[in-house]
């Protein structure tokens, strides 16, 4: 009886060790190691982000459907301007526009301006909040996530785990890949509980260039 119990304990310890080792290997494979001084990192991020007044960028989105073993790609243009203005303009595979301006959300496709969608808005608002908090430097202090930070030569990787129950249903975690040179977001990765994920890569970024008002209005 005692031997059997010891076997179970030993098996559990071995499993735990394997888990720790495999997790460490996964991070190491990407070249990421944990940030040692997280408080210093958070302060640097907040300071650098505070200097960002606007961002315009192209984006490439990839949705991985594990259930279907398929990927779906889309792309478009992204704009941010302080304080609370975001524009996501999808141009491929079809036109689709989302504008966040203050607390309002406007959505349009090539046929109509869509009515406010409470279901989608939960997701849109969360992504909106992530981006706004990120560029304003408040992401780590928002209280909406548990976070941990890693780094390699080029990027910091911030892993955020939502604390709000409504958001947990959609997202298990968010990974932000932050450029070490200017602290701008290179990639936003949303990972769902099912294992599906959406990666949004920001390319051709322009920081702190003027963006006209009409970009954030629906005409």
């Amino acid at each position: 009886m005692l031997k059997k119990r010891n076997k179970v304990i030993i098996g559990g310890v071995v499993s735990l060790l394997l888990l720790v080792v495999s997790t460490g290997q996964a991070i190491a494979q990407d070249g990421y190691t944990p940030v040692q001084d997280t408080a210093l990192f958070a302060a640097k991020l907040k300071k650098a982000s505070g200097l960002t007044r606007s961002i315009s960028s192209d984006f490439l989105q990839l949705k991985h459907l594990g259930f279907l073993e398929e990927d779906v790609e889309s792309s478009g243009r992204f704009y941010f301007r302080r304080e609370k203005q975001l524009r996501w303009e999808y141009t491929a595979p079809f036109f689709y526009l989302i504008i966040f301006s203050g607390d309002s959300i406007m959505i349009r496709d090539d046929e109509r301006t869509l009515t406010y969608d409470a279901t989608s808005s939960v997701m849109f608002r969360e992504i909106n909040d992530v981006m706004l908090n990120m560029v304003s430097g408040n992401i780590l202090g928002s209280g909406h996530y548990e976070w941990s930070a890693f780094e390699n030569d080029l990027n910091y990787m911030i892993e955020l785990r939502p604390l709000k129950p409504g958001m947990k249903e959609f997202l298990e975690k968010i990974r932000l890949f932050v450029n070490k040179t200017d602290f701008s977001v290179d990639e936003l990765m949303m990972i769902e509980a099912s294992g599906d994920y959406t990666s949004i890569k920001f390319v051709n970024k322009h920081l702190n260039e003027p963006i006209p008002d009409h970009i954030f209005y629906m005409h």
Partner: protein
Amino acid sequence: MNPSRIIYFICISVLLLLAGCRASKHWHAAESGAPVTAIGERKAFGPGFDKVLFRARLSVYGQDLNGLMMIKAQDDGSHKVAFFNELGMNFFDLILLPGDKANHRILRVNNIYSSLNRKKLLNAFEKQFSMLLGPDLLQSPAPEYADDKHGGRFLRIDSYRGKDHYYFEGPSARFRMITNVTGLCRDEKVVIGISYQEDEPAPEKIWIRQADMKMTFSLERISRQ
């Protein structure tokens, strides 16, 4: 009142009800006697169908859900369906397995957004996809009729729920409309319109309306196979 009078009035009421229902039926047809040929060639998702990406709009329970829907055929005869919004968040992942009743696919849920996880809605999806991916006949042939009202012809299939009508226009034409009629008055419970382009195995556009749930579902293809 005399019991015989009560029975008389009940009978008259039933006859009037039936007459009203007959007058409201949506098709007038006569059996053609022509043999059924190449049902597989007429299907909305024709031979050689592998996968397709649609732009999708679903309106139900006062919600408008917009995004992309991928439908993918599996080697075992089942189909997987994923619906997600533009930013990539999943509304549902479903699998439709071949059933053991006429024109029936069995729906299994892999993952679904909680506000859509309602039995009535899942039953509606199961019926609509069974119709779209069908007809699946356990015993052929299905009777073929001439459609006096709209022109063309249609197949009439006793499905696991009501009767499914598959409309087509010519000897080699694909199904352009599918309806499900149920109940004493043969109400159209589900209406599906389909359009095609060239020889693609998957439809170009699909419109689904289920009046009793105030549900509409539209799909527009954005990928070629």
